[in-house]
């Protein structure tokens, strides 16, 4: 296990929770619609998830668990998994406030204390997909899913990784090589991220027994606006190039 990146990311997300995810949790939990990413692209526009009614869902890196709450409202039975106690405390407060209750498990996605083949959908929206070691969390996702279950995750696009300067907003210039990309700690940041090229995502998913169903490269809508807290990219950039991407894979 990557104890160092797990520890670093708990520190990072304890701070981010105090700064943003705790104060914004109520607004996120209250949404009746499912939204994707920093440009708030409605699920109804891109139709990634489909009907979740009655599905057992595990969210890997749930943070304050608003995404699980959205799925619970649509009839799913979610379990939220996250290593950061502060975010889980916020999630518990929201459960008490809203009456939307589901299990929360304090664990890193690299090693999840839940039984094999017990879920129909494994989900990660800027959770394990960016902050956990892909070799380990994708294997865990495969283990947790029943045959035919789906893995859906959103993370930063390759182009954002390539065009983001060390500090500041994403540019139109290639700032770093694609070859050799993987684990990165941005200068001045505490957290440690993992980014893979598309070829390696496909290889890793196939090696873990997944069929590739879809890749959604997200485009900012005409009426989208610059992100607030997550200000790594502008809306003008996000209309020309994908800032985020969603992978959909099915366990064979």
């Amino acid at each position, binding site marked *: 296990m990557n104890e160092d990146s797990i520890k670093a990311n708990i520190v990072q997300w304890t701070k981010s929770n105090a700064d943003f995810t705790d104060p914004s949790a109520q607004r996120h939990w209250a949404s009746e619609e499912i939204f994707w990413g920093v440009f708030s692209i409605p699920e109804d526009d891109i139709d990634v998830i489909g009907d979740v009614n009655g599905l057992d869902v595990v969210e890997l890196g749930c943070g304050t668990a608003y995404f699980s709450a959205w799925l619970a409202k649509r009839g799913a039975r979610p379990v939220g998994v996250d290593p950061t106690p502060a975010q889980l405390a916020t999630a518990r407060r929201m459960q008490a406030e809203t009456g939307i209750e589901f299990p929360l498990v304090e664990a890193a996605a690299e090693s999840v204390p839940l039984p094999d083949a017990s879920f129909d959908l494994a989900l990660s929206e800027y959770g394990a997909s960016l902050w956990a070691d892909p070799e380990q969390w994708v294997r865990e996702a495969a283990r947790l899913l029943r045959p035919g279950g789906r893995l859906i995750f959103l993370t930063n696009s390759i*182009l954002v990784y390539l065009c983001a300067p060390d500090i500041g907003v994403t540019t139109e210039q*290639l700032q770093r090589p694609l070859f050799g990309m993987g684990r990165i700690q941005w200068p001045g940041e505490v957290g440690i991220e993992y980014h893979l090229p598309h070829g390696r995502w496909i290889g890793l998913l196939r090696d873990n027994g997944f069929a590739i169903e879809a890749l959604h490269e997200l485009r900012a809508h005409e009426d989208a606006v610059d992100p607030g807290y997550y200000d790594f990219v502008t809306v003008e950039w996000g*209309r020309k190039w994908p800032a985020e991407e969603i992978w959909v894979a099915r366990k064979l």
Partner: protein
Amino acid sequence: MSARNVEAWTRANTDYTDARAEEAWGKDEIDWGIWAVPESEVHALPDVSGKDVVELGCGTAYFGAWLKRRGARRVVGVDPTPAQLETARRCMAKTGIELELVQAFGEDVPLPDASFDLVISEHGAAAWADPERWLPEAYRLLRPGGRLVFLHTSPLAYCCFPAVGQITEQLQRPYFGLDAVVWPGDDGVEYQLTHAEWISLLRETGFLVERLIELQATESAVTHEYYNDVPVEWARQWPEEEIWVASKP
């Protein structure tokens, strides 16, 4: 593929591919793309021994010749450009390697359904034919369990080419809406999709996506003498070419 691509490749054959055909046919090792990345490193191909292969957009058919030498039972090269097929016939006569050559576009191949184990395209149909039409043709031509392997320029490279001149380290055009591109001063029509669109089209056609191999220029690679709009330094940092591998269930 349009008639203008036949004109473009008739000229390119006179300028380059004809003169280089015999050397290409003579190579013992299979390699990929303008950086000549060895197949022994990327393992994109299945074992072709005893298999039936069709190459869509074969040009002078050197890739087909390599596969025939590796024991493929039958290799059919399909290309719409008569001049390149003429060069291929000359190489067949010189080497004694027997391929079947068919003059046709990758979008409309006059060969029967389910008659091949491997469909290959190396900067052929994969770059110069309409993917909405050639992928269904590839699927139709394959037997169940068969493989499609194709190489083309990466969408990242597309984004970084200016209208004229060498590739840059700058995003020159949007990624969304890549499609049919006619480069100024160049007569051919090239087709490119985003990665998401390639996956979607492969899936809709019925293929399973097996692999995407993003090719890195090796340490010993040098900037290509003819396809010289990408310096090797660029291709050591970013994938200028990529290979998709898909299978027919």
